[in-house]
């Protein structure tokens, strides 16, 4: 690991001020916040991340969840994944989020990883993580992509480009996609809110740019809208082993039914997209229809219609469909 300077931020504004000195907050950032450290320190050991300054934000007062008068839930950026998974409001009103969190990583890592950090979790693409491969457009723009034509069993089939097929690894963010979370960002004295659906960028020609964050931005909290009345939600994760593994395919579903028909559907997929994958196509195929297998199958087909498999991951197309169908069946029976 290269050397760096470590400082501790005493307030969100001070953290933002220090981070504003970075030329970018995307790949290659000169200044990084460290929260749980489970992504950043891992990548610093691999020399994939080489910040010259690391700002410790662990003492910031951002570790609370707070129910708002309008019924929404504020989740502080420093709330640990383990705490969020067991938060009574989350367990009761947003089970899809609790299930997603508990399906991710391990007890130790969930005690460390934070809400803000999980949103910024980096891909597990083994070519991105290994400097022995010079070709990685996400690490070194213009260098090529070793995963296309390489070993790509775990890579994305949705949202890919000819420059990058790296999968977004988060479970939490997939659930938050289906819950239509809003991300609150502080920069110096100004604040703004970004819907999670607009937060992540597709790789396109610039896979090094992963989200809309700018130098000085600090995620302070995430807002979950009030729970949809009468809706049920569920997270299903399929993977190579029963625990402690990234998703090959996952589905976050929020479904409101009325008299056997689906009134409202919010669908997001994990393990298959270059970003946490909201599927308006599946939602459209579900809403107003009978909650039965024919409808679920049509929704799954719609969600994967534009899938573009690689050499090793064609199985993901069918796997993702079955995953979604099973999640929908679970939540409506």
């Amino acid at each position, binding site marked *: *690991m*290269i*050397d*760096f*300077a*470590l400082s*501790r931020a005493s307030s969100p504004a001070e953290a933002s001020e220090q981070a504003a*000195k970075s030329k970018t907050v995307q790949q290659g950032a*000169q200044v990084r916040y*460290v929260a*749980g*450290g*489970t992504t950043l*320190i*891992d990548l*610093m*050991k691999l020399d994939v991340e080489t910040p*010259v*300054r*690391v700002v*410790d934000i*662990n003492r910031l007062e951002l570790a609370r969840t707070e129910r708002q008068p309008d019924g929404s839930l504020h989740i502080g950026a420093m709330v640990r994944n*383990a705490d969020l998974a*067991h938060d009574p409001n989350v367990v009761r009103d947003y089970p899809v989020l609790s299930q997603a969190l508990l399906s991710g*990583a*391990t*007890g*130790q*890592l969930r*005690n*460390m990883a934070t809400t803000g950090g999980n949103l910024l979790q980096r891909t597990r693409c083994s070519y991105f993580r290994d400097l022995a491969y010079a070709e990685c457009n996400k690490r070194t723009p213009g260098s090529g992509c070793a995963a296309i034509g390489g070993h790509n069993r775990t890579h994305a089939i949705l949202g890919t480009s000819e420059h990058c097929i790296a999968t977004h690894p988060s479970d939490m963010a997939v659930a938050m996609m289906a819950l239509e979370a809003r991300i609150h960002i502080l920069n110096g004295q100004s604040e703004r809110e970004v819907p999670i659906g607009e937060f992540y960028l597709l790789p396109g020609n610039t896979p090094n740019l992963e989200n809309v964050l700018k130098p000085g931005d600090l995620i302070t909290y995430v807002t979950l809208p009030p729970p949809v009345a009468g809706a049920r939600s569920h997270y299903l994760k399929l993977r190579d082993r*029963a*625990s*402690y593994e990234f998703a090959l395919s996952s589905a976050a579903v929020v479904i409101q039914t009325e008299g056997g028909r689906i009134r409202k559907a919010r669908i997001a997929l994990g393990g298959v997209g270059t970003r946490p994958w909201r599927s308006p196509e599946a939602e459209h195929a579900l809403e107003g229809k009978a909650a039965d297998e024919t409808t679920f199958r049509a929704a799954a087909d719609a969600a994967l219609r534009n899938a573009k498999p690689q050499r090793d991951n064609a199985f993901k197309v069918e796997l993702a469909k079955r995953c979604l169908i099973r999640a929908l069946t679970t939540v409506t029976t």
Partner: protein
Amino acid sequence: MSEQNRDPAVPEKIVTDETEQSKEKPFGHFTRRTFIAQLGAAGIAATATPSLAAAATQEAAAPSAREETIAVTLSINGKKQTLNIEPRVTLLDCLRERLNLTGTKKGCDHGQCGACTVHINGRRVNSCLTFAAMHEGDEITTIEGIGQPGNLHPMQAAFVEHDGYQCGYCTSGQIMSAVAVLKEPWGPEDKDVREAMSGNICRCGAYPNIVAAVQQVRGNSQKSS
């Protein structure tokens, strides 16, 4: 050192912490650890190449690219210790290489195996994925603080009783994890223990015995509470 003018061509300094090692208490006999450490030093001397030596000289002559070390007071197993460390020193390396608390093991060094599990403020974490300098004011507990020969923690005793290991390398991490699991909201079944403990890999495959050990202690603590 400004942030812009670091020369990426300057090789990363090879850190040998001989001064620290010399502070180790003499044992009066070879332990496995001191023996291996000496073997390692001899191996390095025998294989050092001229280019490595040249790089080291160059590094010494050039103004240091390193940030200054920082003074940190850590509370470990109830004892406060102040030391100067580089920011990049992980808690794991700090425990093992600076404080000689070698009960905590380094397996993968990337948060994938759990051998380095310690408690910070009572919660289990991977000590390889956090910088020591981030933990001023935190209460850190290692396997040495859980129990000692003659005064074992019930979980340590249960691992012995159930033979919850073969080579023993993962064991301190397993026990640190298991002790924390007692305080976490998990179900009562064996499958719940397996899920709770999935962040601790045992390459010898002692899992059934580990589950039995954890279940015994959980059963006893539930009866007594």
